């Protein structure tokens, strides 16, 4: 899957879970400080990414992604790994 597609889908998920407009979500946006995610919503985002991409993520590693671009990289890496396997 192209990284651009991953990013677009991730932004859609973030918008849905955090009840935001997609336009508000920039690549550099920090989940907590810019997008206002609390710890529970952070976990919900992890779960939503898993559902969206049909993958399973290690929560502690996933939660270390602080920004949208870090989340995109993290998911893209898992998808690439899954493709190889």
């Amino acid at each position, binding site marked *: 899957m192209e990284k651009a597609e991953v990013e677009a889908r991730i932004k859609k998920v973030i918008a849905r*879970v955090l009840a935001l407009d997609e336009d508000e979500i920039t690549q550099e946006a920090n989940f907590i*400080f810019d997008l206002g995610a609390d*710890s*529970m919503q952070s*976990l*919900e985002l*992890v*779960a*939503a990414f*898993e*559902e969206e991409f049909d993958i399973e993520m*290690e*929560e*502690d590693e996933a*939660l270390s992604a602080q920004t949208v671009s870090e989340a995109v990289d993290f998911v893209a890496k898992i998808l690439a790994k899954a493709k190889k396997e």
Partner: protein
Amino acid sequence: MSLRKLTESEIKDLERQGCSSESWESISVSAYFNPERIRSVSFSGRISIGRLEKRISLPGGTEKPCGLYNSMIHNCSFGDNICISSVNYLANYDIGEDVLVDNVDSLVVDGKSAFGNGTEIDILNEAGGRSLKIFDRLSSQIAYLYVLYRHNESLIKTLETMIDQYVKSRISARGLLGRGCSILNSSVLRNLVVGPYAIVNGALHLEDGTIDSCTEDPIFIGEGVIARHFIILSGSKIMDSSIIESCFIGQGVTIGKQYSAENSAFFANCEGFHGEAALVFAGPYTVSHHKSTLMIAGLFSFYNAGSGTNQSNHMYKLGPVHQGILERGCKTGSYSYMIWPCRVGPFSAVIGKHGSNFDTSDFPFSYITEKEGISVLTPAMNLLSVGSRRDSEKWPARDRRKSARKLDIINFGYLNPYTVGRMVNGSEKLLDLHAAALEAKTKEFVTYKGVHIRRLMLKICSRYYEMGVKVFLGSCLHARLDKLSNREAGRRVSMEVVKEALAPNNREGVCDWVDLCGLIAPSESVEKLVDAVADAKIKDLDELSAELKRIHENYDEAEWSWCLNLLETRLGVKLEDFTSQHLSGIVTDWKQNTIKLNNLIKEDALKEYNASAMIGYGIDGGETEREKDFIAVRGTYEDNRFVKQIEEDSKNVEEKAEALLGLLDAL
């Protein structure tokens, strides 16, 4: 104590010193009696007086010679070296050695009394049906069975008979003041038994009660206290104008700062300040510290009530008939509210105002929050909370009980078959709910027994439970094999030897487990005990307490049999067919999941050091002052004692797991 009658000259001396008696003949004194030490006392009834030789120290550095001064005394016996001074009326008491009673209005036994024993308190259900007869040997376990097992009529009947028998043995027309106790500056004291070394100072009104103090753990009752129909056990403190009506106060309890409580039982190490308790079964370590905090008609233990916590037991229909249960380790946030009936699973946090009746007992370690009027459950979240872990570690250190006879049995374990069993079931239920909601991806919530659970969280929370289960199973396996690896250090062991070490001595624990208000026990052991009581095979309260103790002492073995059964189920093989690969898998899971769980807890702790935690620091300065002020007050994350402890735990588990894997590899 050998006693004699007063001599003529002693009577004359006493009269000259302002004393009088209805009958000097009724007064017996010790062979070493010194009449100098009795002044301005009016006697009636039978009186016996021991030696009066020592001096008693008073606060402020003065001393007073032992003796009887300025008092009216009826029908009392006095041990050696007592000091009774300015007591308007003292009647029907046996007073031990070294007792000080000073500046007291009245201290009287009026007729026969059981001194609070046998008082029925309407606990949990205000409309009745669960009343508890309190007595001075009551433990949280006996109370639990008596209050909550009403479905077993013969158990309740037998327990009642046992308690009645005991209460009967406490009935007397004479009160006792135990050796070395002090009763000072108090007003009305009626029908009391006071144990050794208790201090009552400034009490307003104490009536129909036992103050079961002991030498190693005295009781303190302070200024302004009003208490009626009560039992107070060793090591407890009741202070600061608190009001206690029909209450049981267990060992090491502190009640103060104008707390008021009625029809409630507080077991070991409870604390109540400022607030109110009504009809409360406060199991060990129930704590309410703040004003406007009401606990009503609920069962609690290891509980912390946030300020303004409140519940309702009344729906304006059939009266105040509702009850609530917060299982071990729960917390309620500031101004949280629940409408009973509700049942909250162990180690959960309730935040916000809840208007629905829910039962979350299937989901331990949860958050129950409120969103737009609905109750939202997030399972397993409290497992990752730094607070839960800290709580579980501080309780053992805060056991205030010093008496050799500790009545409440307390198992402090945080992960055990009771909590982990709930996690296993909770995890399965979450996966079932997830499977059922697969086709409903647009739904935000699924509902379960009165709460809403976010659909997206079902799978992830199930994984967290699984993490807890693996940590527990691995640590139990390690504990079991640790002895073996120590014993066989440096030697090769066979799989047969390992299996032998893993074979449980009994299978008592293979069933669901329960928390009997401190005692974590297999439900089948409890059922057997209950049957034995109901069938009168257990004859009295001592035998019942001994059997409860036996169950507790078998904990390790029963815990292992539970773990082994779960491992066998999960691996799909019996112990006989375990291989070293099976065991290595469990140990590896233990290591990985402990580190993962500890990392998540550390993440949670880290939030206490982020930018929002620094709000308000460095008040009149900039960024630099803010950080410096924060570090000066809070320290750094890296230096936090608890964080270091968690890191140490991860390291220890890793080392232990590696050593065990080495042993298993060599099989």
